[in-house]
């Protein structure tokens, strides 16, 4: 067995050459703190999304502004008329029976399959949501410190100067659209779109979702009046919080799709053990 030292990361990784000549090398790509963060966060985000959907079920209407209640004008409603579910977006109604509004014989905005708990309980959902909010806050803070101290942010996540050009990004978008992912040496590092997705989650979605969550707290709003001011009021903060949740859901879908398309075994090994086999260079 070849030696490996756990100093590597996406770039400059430790290597373990296979006994079989010609096979692509196995590299140590994902360090332990990144793996721990990934799995903690995966669990946390799922609990937050599912309990969040149950909390949303208590008042499935979203407003812009400082206030918003049943007799005010919402920009989004998920509701039901009898056994027909609908989603109303900016006044346009879309039938969603079986998915939203009315599904699984339940008149909840989000159906039992995707909520924690599955039967209506705002109180329980809040307990889950706020307990895991602490996990999210603490793990995200620790990971941010790690990112800076270890150089993970500078070395692996930040876009390299040459990656910042429109033409380079456009090329990367086209490659992704053709489902052609980097191979060989290029696969040692995250690709630009991947970096942008991770940076977006770390620096946009997570801070925004935490701050808008805090803005829904009357106690925190009293102590930190800049919070509701920042987001244009509590009702707006609640809407932005919901949109962030949508952003997380979208990230998860794209992320899982990318894992499946890039080779689920290799990707899973990398995020569990850290070891990743560089995909073979494509024939040009």
């Amino acid at each position, binding site marked *: 067995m070849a030696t490996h030292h756990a100093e590597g990361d996406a770039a400059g990784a430790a290597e373990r050459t296979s006994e079989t000549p010609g096979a692509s090398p196995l590299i140590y790509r994902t360090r332990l703190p990144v793996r721990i963060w990934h799995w903690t966060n995966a669990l946390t985000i799922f609990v937050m999304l599912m309990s969040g959907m149950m*909390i*949303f079920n*208590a*008042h499935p*209407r979203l407003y812009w502004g*400082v*206030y*918003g*209640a*049943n*007799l*005010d004008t919402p920009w989004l409603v998920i509701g039901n008329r009898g056994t027909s579910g609908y989603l109303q977006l900016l006044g346009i109604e879309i039938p969603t029976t079986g998915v939203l509004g009315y599904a699984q014989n339940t008149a909840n905005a989000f159906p*039992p*399959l995707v909520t*924690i*708990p*599955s*039967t209506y*309980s*705002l*109180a*329980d959902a*809040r*307990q*889950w949501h*706020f*307990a*895991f*909010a*602490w996990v999210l806050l603490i793990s995200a803070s620790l990971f941010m410190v790690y990112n800076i101290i270890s150089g993970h942010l500078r070395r692996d996540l930040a876009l390299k100067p040459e990656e910042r050009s429109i033409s380079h990004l456009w090329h990367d978008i086209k490659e992704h659209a053709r489902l052609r992912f980097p191979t060989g040496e290029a696969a040692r590092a995250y690709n630009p779109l991947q970096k942008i997705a991770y940076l977006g989650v770390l620096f946009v979605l997570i801070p925004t979702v935490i701050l808008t*969550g*805090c803005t*829904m*707290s*009357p*106690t*925190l*709003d*009293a*102590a*930190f*009046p800049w919070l*509701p001011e920042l987001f244009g009021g*509590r*009702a707006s903060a*609640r809407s932005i919080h919901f949109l962030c949740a949508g952003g997380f859901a979208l990230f998860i879908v794209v992320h899982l799709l990318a894992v499946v398309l890039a080779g689920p075994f290799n990707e899973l090994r990398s995020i569990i053990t850290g070891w990743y086999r560089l995909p073979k260079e494509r024939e040009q």
Partner: protein
Amino acid sequence: MSKDKTPGLILPAERPSSLVTRRNALVGGAGLLLAGCDQINASPTVKSFLSLGEQATHRAQRLVTDRNALAQEFSRAEMSPVFRQNGNQNPGTAEYNALAANRFADWTLAVDGMVAHPLRISLAQLMAAPRRTQITRHDCVEGWSAIGEWSGVPLGLILRRAGLSGNAKYVVFHCADSTGGAPYYESIDLIDAFHPQTILATHMNGELLTIGHGAPLRLRVERQLGYKQAKYVMRVEAVASLDGLYGGGGGYWEDHRGYQWFAGI
């Protein structure tokens, strides 16, 4: 386990209408998953883990916020056009109906428990007392909010007048309404009780409270969620502990639905 086919077992494929369709398997699987999740949700260990989060939130909010920080106050122009009613909208008891019929002229607020001088305060006395008027945002636990104007007597003033005992830790509000036979009540700690915006309101939007909004008296504790804003307040009791009081949770929703006692978020 033997992989041999059990004699007489009919394979699904051999049936005219298959018992195990992909859809059924999916729905069945989802059902098992849900049952599993609900078992986790009901587990006492999980519940106590989750309540650690609740305690952390309570402590952290008290730690990082100024205890006297005022909730934002708004102008009349920023008020909700309609402030919806919520919770019980009329206690409907014979006693309450009689009080309401006489415009609460015979109503009195009892202030007792751990106080040196128990009080009985009439509505006329409350009207004559120093008052505070504030336009604030009401945040329901469900997620909606509404802005309204509240006017009433600072709770701190009443507690001082009654001579609150140094051993008292909570103030309990006993209400005229009940749900399914369980009386509504709420409680707050002394930080909130003596907060300048914590008032016993007699007026809303410049008029006497309507029955729907909690006439003749409701609590406003502006840095907490809606379910803490007890309506139809009949009695204010100072206590050292919430144990042994109704369900021990410190409020109707806390006892019956498991809502958090500290409703700061």
